């Protein structure tokens, strides 16, 4: 299933399936269903339109097209697409927020050591970014 960056394969959580718990592993994950708990992968995470995640996530690249409530840590790039919604803090080496996306939280850029495909951090923050001031 699509050889990508680090992880070999991509797992898929379809629309009507829920996971409540912790997910981890060297794998990519495509979420169209519901996850509650925590996700820690060394691959990429793609949250589709119908994906709803109430969990902290850590992965290499993260693409959000659905709803995420939780803190997000992308070692490389975080993308929030127009239909995406992130309520929570994020840390990433590169951020790409498309017009229409919703992001409420704090953003923290990581100084990436040796970013290869220098993915343009086209930080078009024309989304509704409401910086919240909450301490962790």
């Amino acid at each position, binding site marked *: *299933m*699509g050889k*990508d*960056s680090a*992880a*070999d*394969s*991509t*797992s*898929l*959580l*379809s*629309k*009507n*399936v*829920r*996971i*409540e*718990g*912790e*997910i*981890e*592993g*060297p*794998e*990519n*994950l*495509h979420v*169209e*269903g519901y996850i509650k*708990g925590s996700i820690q992968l060394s691959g*990429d995470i*793609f949250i*589709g339109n*119908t994906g709803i995640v109430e969990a902290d996530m850590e992965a290499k*690249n993260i*693409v959000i097209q659905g709803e995420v409530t939780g803190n997000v840590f992308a070692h490389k*790039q975080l*993308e929030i*697409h127009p239909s995406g919604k992130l309520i929570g803090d994020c840390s990433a080496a590169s951020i*790409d927020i*498309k*017009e229409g996306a919703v992001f409420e939280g704090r953003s923290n850029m990581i100084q990436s050591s040796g970013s290869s495909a220098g*993915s*343009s951090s*086209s930080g*078009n923050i024309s989304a509704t970014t409401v910086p919240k001031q909450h301490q962790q």
Partner: protein
Amino acid sequence: MPLFGKKKKESKMVGQQAALGQNETTYFGKNLQIKGRVSGNGNLIILGSLNGEFRLKGRLKIAQPAKIKGDVNADVISVNGKVQGSLTAHDSVHLDKTARIEGRINTPKLSIMEGAIFDGEINMGVRAPQPAKSTAADTGRSSQVTPPSAEKPTPR
């Protein structure tokens, strides 16, 4: 720099997968480790490990390197990996050559291929099931694999 290029960066990993996902079979790859509960409707194939519970309305396939520790509940279960826990199916259970089950199986229909290893108890609903574990609340419920009419009629 196309701002509206939908599949521009998506295509890296999601080109094909953007089309999927709506009512496809859920797939947990062999490197995925889940601790917790998986529930829902639909079919599911798991190759990774799960420490927890499955409550699925649909077909569940536990494929080769999978290791499940916990109770499994689905309509049709096909096992080719290792399960430590109970397997409760609404319709049928199939154990393939490399299946290893340690635990209980509750199902109305069963098939076991030569080579499968099954260490436990099986209940197909003919005899009134004796709940083995008194602690696990689930087995009490799972033993309702509709015993047809074989209960001892003791009208009071």
